[in-house]
C-alpha cells in the first residue's frame, strides 16, 4: 500500500442543467461542473458513460460555450445513429442527470483574442462547434479582431446556432458570416448554394482587410481535407491553417 495521498481523479462529475435542441440532429447539453473548470475557446472534453456492468464508453466533444460564459459548459452533440454515446445524450439524458467529464483538452486548435487576427474560420456541419466558442469569446471580450466564418451545412434548418450567428453578423462589428448550403438555395444575399471551393475561399478572404493570421478548419475528414486544400489554393500558407477532424 502506498502511503501517498491518492491523486485526484482527472474525471469529474457534471450535471446536465439544460437541454436545448439546435437542429433536427444537434442538441446542446449544458453541463455544470463540480469543480472549477477553466478552458480556452476551441478546446474539447472527454465524456465518459458507465453501464451497471462496469462497461465504459468515452467520446470527445468540442466546447461550444465561451470561456467567459461562467461555470456552465455547453456541448452541442450531433446524433450519430450508429454511435453509443450520442444516442444516449439524445434519447435518454435528462436535466439533472450526471455524467463524467475530463478536460479541458487540446492545446492546438485554440484561439484567444490576445492571439490577434484576422481570423478565417471554416466549419462543416457540427464542425462549427469549436469555432462558435471562438466567435462567442470574441463577442464576450468585445474584441476588435476581424473574423470571417464560412459555414457549410446541407440545408438552412441544419445551420447550428443560426439565429445567434446572424445576430452577431448584423452587429457589423467585425464578425462576418457566410453560409454555404449544399442542398438548398442560399437565403442571404452573400451566401452560397454549393460546396466549398477555392473561389469561395478567395472571396471570403476579401471580406477581411488583411490576409488571415490564422485559419481554423473543423468538420469531417472529407470536409477538412477539401477546405484546407481550397485555402492553400487560395493562397493561405499551410503553416497558418489549423485543423480538427472528427476522424471519419
Amino acid at each position, binding site marked *: 500500500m502506498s502511503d501517498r495521498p491518492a*491523486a485526484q481523479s*482527472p474525471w469529474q*462529475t457534471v450535471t446536465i442543467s439544460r437541454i436545448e435542441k439546435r437542429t433536427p440532429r444537434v442538441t446542446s447539453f449544458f453541463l455544470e461542473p463540480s469543480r472549477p473548470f477553466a478552458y480556452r475557446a476551441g478546446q474539447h472534453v472527454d465524456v465518459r*458513460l*458507465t*453501464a*451497471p*456492468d462496469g*462497461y*465504459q*464508453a*468515452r*467520446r*470527445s466533444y468540442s466546447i461550444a460555450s465561451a470561456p467567459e460564459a461562467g461555470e456552465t459548459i455547453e456541448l452541442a452533440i450531433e446524433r450519430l445513429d450508429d454511435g*453509443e454515446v450520442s444516442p*444516449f445524450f439524445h434519447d*435518454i*439524458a435528462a436535466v439533472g*442527470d*450526471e*455524467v*463524467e467529464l*475530463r478536460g479541458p*483538452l*487540446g*492545446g*492546438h*486548435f485554440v484561439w484567444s483574442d490576445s492571439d490577434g487576427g484576422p481570423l478565417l474560420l471554416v466549419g462543416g456541419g457540427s464542425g462549427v462547434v469549436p469555432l462558435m466558442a471562438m466567435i462567442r469569446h470574441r463577442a464576450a471580450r468585445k474584441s476588435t479582431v476581424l473574423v470571417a466564418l464560412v459555414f457549410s451545412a446541407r440545408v438552412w434548418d441544419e445551420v447550428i446556432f443560426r439565429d445567434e450567428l446572424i445576430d452577431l453578423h448584423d452587429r457589423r462589428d467585425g464578425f462576418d458570416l457566410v453560409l454555404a448550403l449544399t442542398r438548398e438555395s442560399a437565403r442571404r444575399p452573400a451566401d452560397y448554394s454549393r460546396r466549398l471551393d477555392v473561389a469561395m475561399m478567395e472571396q471570403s478572404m476579401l471580406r477581411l482587410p488583411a490576409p488571415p493570421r490564422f485559419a481554423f478548419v473543423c468538420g469531417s*475528414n472529407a470536409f477538412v*481535407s477539401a477546405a*484546407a*486544400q481550397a*485555402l*492553400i489554393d487560395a493562397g493561405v500558407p*499551410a*503553416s497558418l*491553417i*489549423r*485543423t480538427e*477532424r*472528427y*476522424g*471519419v
Partner: protein
Amino acid sequence: MITRGFSSGRKPPTDADARIPPGQYLEQGFPVLSAGPTPRVRTEDWSFTLKHGPRPIKTWNWTEFNALPLAKMTRDIHCVTAWTKFDTAWQGVLVDDILADAGIEPPTAFTLALSFDGYTTNVPTQDLTAGKAMVALLYEGKPITPDHGGPARLLVPHLYFWKSAKWLNGLQFTERDEPGFWELRGYHIYGDPWREQRYTSDP
C-alpha cells in the same frame, strides 16, 4: 459512477476484448486525424535523414530508401481519441535496418521523429529498435495515401498512434527526452495505451 439509463453494448468476453486497451473501442474504418492540412509530398522530393542532434548522419532519397530490406508488420493500433483497429498490415523498413545501413548503433536513449509539415513526436530509442518500429511505406500492400501519412510514416504500434508520425522525413537522436508537438500540448510524454497514458497528467 454508473450513468443513469446507459446500458452496455457489451457481449460475453471474447478473445478480441483482451486486445482492446482500457477506454478504447473497436473501429472497423480507418479514421484520419491531424493538426493541419495534409501535405502532398512527391516521392521525387522525398528524403529521409538520420540525425544526431543537429548533425546529419545519413540521408536517403526515395529510391535509396526503397532499396533497404522491406519487412512486414501486422499490428493492432490504438488512437488516443479512443479507437482501436485490429490487424493493420504494413510494410516498410525496420528502424534496426536503417541504423544498420547507416553503420551506427543508437547514439542516445531518446529520439525525435520529424515530419515534412514540422510535426515532431518523441519516442525513447529502445521503443524503436529490436523490431518494435518501422518506417512504413505500404499499407495493405499499396502506397500509403497522403491522408494516412504517405509516402512514409513512422509505425510504433505499441504506443498511441500520434507517436507514429505521418509524412516522416527524419529521426533525430537527442540527449534528453524532448517533448514533441502534441506532447507540448497536453498529451502524454510516453503514451502507453495499456497504461492509458493519454494526457500529461496521467501516471
